[in-house]
């Protein structure tokens, strides 16, 4: 547990140092991230050898203390966060000089890592509110790094995120008023036994708030604007990690606190919302003329798979659906990091925001284009990528059940749509007759760094056995 604590505190320390010591902000923040990556690896090893651990902050008695818990799942999510942050920080070291306000990126990125790590480890409703709020504020501040053009989108993001938190907070207040505890494990023993209209209302409020913050259909409309306008490393962090926090809390709430009948009803809604997210997000990604907006809409669509997995896992006792949810989160985080970094790199060198700028990119910027295509392969779910593993876990229990054919059809259509938008990019990139000329010689190192997460997501296939084992599948 001490190592997990260090993985949270090191980025905080790095952020404070980077704020005071602007000249070396990049190196301080990068160093903090790399050290926390090592801590997260050790923490995962400890959990695997000794089992889940918990700690009461400040040694207060149970009930009053904030409880942090490190299980296999949270250790894995902690590791994912630090891995993505290290990759993005390494990329930013080589490429961020182009941005005017580059020095501000570093403390914010460290703070983002700290708040998300604290979110994974927390187990009580109010601590989740605080970490969500921190996450939202830091994310908005990072969106504004691209200058005045981003302020309108950032303000809209901030206001919606605050409204979401206040819905969530009212739900927390109602639940606390009824049961007198905030800890989820404690609530789980009391809540399902005494269901009332009040608890249902509180859960609905919290769900609405979380769906707004997590950009889950139908409350996703702020996401493409905010994610597309941010600088490339920021878009990568936002799409890969930030939207996963509310998703995690959503799953914890419904899997632990709701009665069986209520969670079945909610599962129906999640299945519907997930399908709509898959179809509308995929369609919008296919139709949009801008490259970064396309990648952002693809996030909306991919979150639809996660919602489908939540809905199916709430309905059936099959652990495969839960496993699919976490695999989706891991695979999507890695693939989306690569996609945003590659698109950002090409947008910078080739000039222009439109998808058309990719014309002939396989010739002018082969490494970045390869990264985008490889990441796209995982988004489609081509074997043996991480996206394929997740989809396979989702499909396997669906085959024998004939009454679930509708969801098979939805997943099939969603896959076709994602294949369509990825191939739209690839076809353009191989149109070599009259390629878009780069404004200046493309830098090689950032392109290779953009490729690393995409290779990792394809490498997941080799480690999949241990993942399945750790997550209890």
């Amino acid at each position, binding site marked *: 547990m001490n190592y997990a604590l260090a993985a949270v505190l090191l980025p905080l320390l790095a952020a404070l140092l980077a704020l005071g010591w602007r000249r070396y902000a990049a190196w301080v923040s990068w160093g903090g991230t790399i050290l926390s990556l090592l801590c997260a690896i050790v923490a995962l090893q400890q959990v695997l050898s000794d089992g889940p651990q918990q700690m009461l902050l400040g040694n207060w008695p149970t009930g009053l203390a904030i409880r942090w818990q490190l299980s296999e799942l949270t250790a894995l999510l902690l590791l994912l966060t630090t891995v993505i942050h290290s990759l993005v920080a390494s990329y930013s070291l080589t490429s961020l000089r182009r941005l005017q306000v580059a020095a501000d990126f570093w403390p914010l990125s460290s703070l983002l890592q700290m708040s998300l790590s604290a979110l994974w480890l927390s187990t009580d409703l109010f601590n989740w509110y605080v970490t969500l709020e921190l996450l939202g504020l830091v994310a908005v501040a990072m969106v504004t790094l691209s200058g005045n053009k981003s302020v309108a989108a950032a303000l809209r993001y901030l206001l919606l995120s605050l409204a979401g938190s206040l819905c969530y907070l009212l739900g927390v*207040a109602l639940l606390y008023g009824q049961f007198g505890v905030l800890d989820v494990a404690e609530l789980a023993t009391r809540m399902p036994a005494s269901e009332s209209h009040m608890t249902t209302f509180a859960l609905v409020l919290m769900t609405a708030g979380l769906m707004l913050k997590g950009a889950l259909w139908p409350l996703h409309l702020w996401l493409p604007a905010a994610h597309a306008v941010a600088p490339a490393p920021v878009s990568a962090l936002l799409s890969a990690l930030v939207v996963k926090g509310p998703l995690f809390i959503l799953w914890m709430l419904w899997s632990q606190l709701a009665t069986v009948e209520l969670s079945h009803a909610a599962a129906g809604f999640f299945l519907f919302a997930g399908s709509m997210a898959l179809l509308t997000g995929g369609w919008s990604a296919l139709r949009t003329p801008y490259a970064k907006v396309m990648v952002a809409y693809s996030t909306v669509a991919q979150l639809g798979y996660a919602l489908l997995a939540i809905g199916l896992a709430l309905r059936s006792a099959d652990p495969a659906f839960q496993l699919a949810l976490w695999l989706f989160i891991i695979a999507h985080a890695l693939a989306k990091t690569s996609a945003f970094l590659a698109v950002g790199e090409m947008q910078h060198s080739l000039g222009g925001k439109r998808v058309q700028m990719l014309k002939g990119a396989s010739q002018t910027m082969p490494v970045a284009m390869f990264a985008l295509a490889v990441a796209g392969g995982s988004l489609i779910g081509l074997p043996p990528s991480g996206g394929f593993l997740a989809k396979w876990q989702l499909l396997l229990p669906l085959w024998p059940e004939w009454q679930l054919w509708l969801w098979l059809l939805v997943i099939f259509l969603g896959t076709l749509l994602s294949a369509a938008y990825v191939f739209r990019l690839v076809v353009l990139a191989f149109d070599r007759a009259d390629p878009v000329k780069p404004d200046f010689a493309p830098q090689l190192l950032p392109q290779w760094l953009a490729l690393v997460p995409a290779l990792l997501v394809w490498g997941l296939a080799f480690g999949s056995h241990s993942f399945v084992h750790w997550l209890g599948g």
Partner: protein
Amino acid sequence: MSSIVWYLWIGAGIWGIGLYGFMRGPELLRRIISLNLMGAGVFMVMVALAARTEPTDGVLHALVLTGLVVAVSATAFALALLARLLAAKP
């Protein structure tokens, strides 16, 4: 007890008015003020809930204090962004 229920309803009402104002918009300043109303409503619900036991529930007071800090800083951030947005417009 009945006065606590009364305050609970008032708090919920303020939250609802804030939500209505937030959704109606369209001026951004109105939305920021509406968010503060929603926050005030939630805090009022929490303070009213804290009074239902004797002595009053300290945990809820701590939550309200934390919530106030978050609300103040978030409002300041939103106002700063709004000022920047207005300054950027010609």
